[in-house]
């Protein structure tokens, strides 16, 4: 894991129904499969379809005991760039930490919009998803980028976990496409 703390902390910003919770849980289970300790939980509030949501993930090599919400994240992931119009997503994020945004815009444009001085990774998760899967699945596609940026878990662990959860539900062909999209997001610069 990169960055500095004993416990690696991620906040996902999304809209209700965009699958941030599923993405967080895949990441958490992948880390558990690597023998790590995790927590994944939503910000506890009324969840309404389309309203801004926060989801928290902790990953650590030692037992996680705290039940505080995350206030000092190492990485912030924004699944839907329109969130940036209404929410300040970079609270607690330092210059040596990272902001990952699902967007068609460039990192320069995101920097202008957020005024964030640290590392910005703009990834067109929706575009990749439409190209490869033919459906919008930015929540899982962006996992590829999160893994590449944070090294919090291995790409193989995420892919294995995705296959374990989805292969029976959506079939092998659709699963393979989804995995290809995750790998593509991992490889984007």
């Amino acid at each position, binding site marked *: 894991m990169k960055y500095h703390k004993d416990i690696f902390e991620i906040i996902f910003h999304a809209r209700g129904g965009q699958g941030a919770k599923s993405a*967080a*849980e895949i990441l*958490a*289970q992948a880390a*558990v*499969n690597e*023998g790590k*300790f*995790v*927590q*994944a*939980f*939503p910000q*506890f509030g009324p969840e309404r379809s389309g309203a801004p949501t926060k989801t928290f993930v902790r990953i650590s090599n030692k*037992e*996680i*005991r*705290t*039940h*505080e*919400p995350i*206030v000092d994240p190492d990485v912030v992931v924004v699944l839907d760039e329109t969130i940036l119009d209404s929410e300040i997503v970079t609270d607690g994020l330092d210059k040596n930490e990272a902001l990952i945004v699902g967007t068609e815009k460039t990192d320069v444009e995101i920097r202008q919009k957020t005024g964030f001085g640290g590392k910005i990774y703009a990834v067109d998760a929706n575009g990749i998803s439409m190209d490869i899967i033919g459906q919008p699945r930015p929540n899982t596609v962006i996992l590829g980028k999160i893994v590449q940026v944070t090294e919090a878990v291995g790409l193989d662990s995420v892919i294995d976990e995705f296959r*374990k*959860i989805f292969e*029976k539900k959506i079939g092998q062909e659709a699963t393979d496409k989804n995995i290809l999209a995750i790998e593509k997001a991992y490889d984007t610069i």
Partner: protein
Amino acid sequence: MTNRTRQNRIALTGGAAAAEALRQIEPDVMPVYPITPQTPIIETYAKLRADGEVVTEIIQVESEHSAISASVGSSAAGARTVTATSSQGLALMNEILYIASGMRLPILMVISARALSAPINIHGDHSDVMDARDAGWIQIFSENAQEAYDNVIIGMKLAEKVRIPTMVIMDGFSTSHSVENLEILPSEKVKEFVGEFWPEKYLLDVENPVTFGPLALQNSYFEFKVDQEKAMERAVSEYLAIAKEFERLSGRKKDYFEAYELEDAEQVIILAGSAAGTTKDVVDKLRKQGKKVGLLKINLFRPFPRKEIVEALKNAKSIAIMERAISSGTYPPIYQDILNGLYQTKQEKNIQSIVYSLGGRDIFAKDIEKVFENLIKEDMIGEIKYIL
């Protein structure tokens, strides 16, 4: 086999962890009515039933009052019976809670503890379970998903051993809806631990007809209640015996309470539930600075293991009792119990009553650190302090 893995190390929410323990126990009957934040427990279990993984008779009823009433009927008939609820649901069950305990029915109820209305609030605190603390049920608190899983197994066996209904409590949302690491036992080990349920007397035993819950007037009601209370007193040591048996099975330490850096602690926080984890991190931090602080985390709350708890506090100078409930018009419940125990053993301590996290208000490590700092400074106030 579904994609819910059967491997030893998994990650589940507290609600799903409780459902996993129930899957392994596989009770005969489960009357259910949904309420946030308990719903994930019965939802997960209903899915297991639909998938054919368990054969439990799930009865969907029209209210919590009916859920507990059906549980009373089912348990009296001789079936191993489990239900689950939260908040207003538990409050609605109240009159039947006393009937279940008075009839000595070993019903297990899993609770995702939540605030009580009004104003309406769906989030975690302990108002609901504290409201039920005098209802004659055993109450066991859980800190996290792992303890929710463990306590469901311990609670089922304990209820049936002492014939007292038992509540296994986890914090609404902070535990019920948080995915955390979980080690599960092999199902056959859990089944063997809990054993088969063969009540001594039950309604469907037509060869030996009995009456449950008859009329008992001035000449006998009092004796029934005293006998019931004696059984509750015996449940203290029975809890420990079963908890220790579970410790040997799982390798996870179990006791009346968890003593964290308590032995030589001069300043101690006492609390129950998910804030214990955050407090342990704070204790570690302050210990590194040479401060003699510690935590006593309540596991068994009813019956209250008064003697054992006050014995563990003998070296403490200042104690803060932190609670997620108010006892309107007086001090909060755990404070009253601790004060009572200290008085009986003639221990004089500085003690502070603190109320925190009502209605799901976040509690941060810095808040808990401040509580310890005030204890160190002996900056105590007599009144109840609210961490708003």
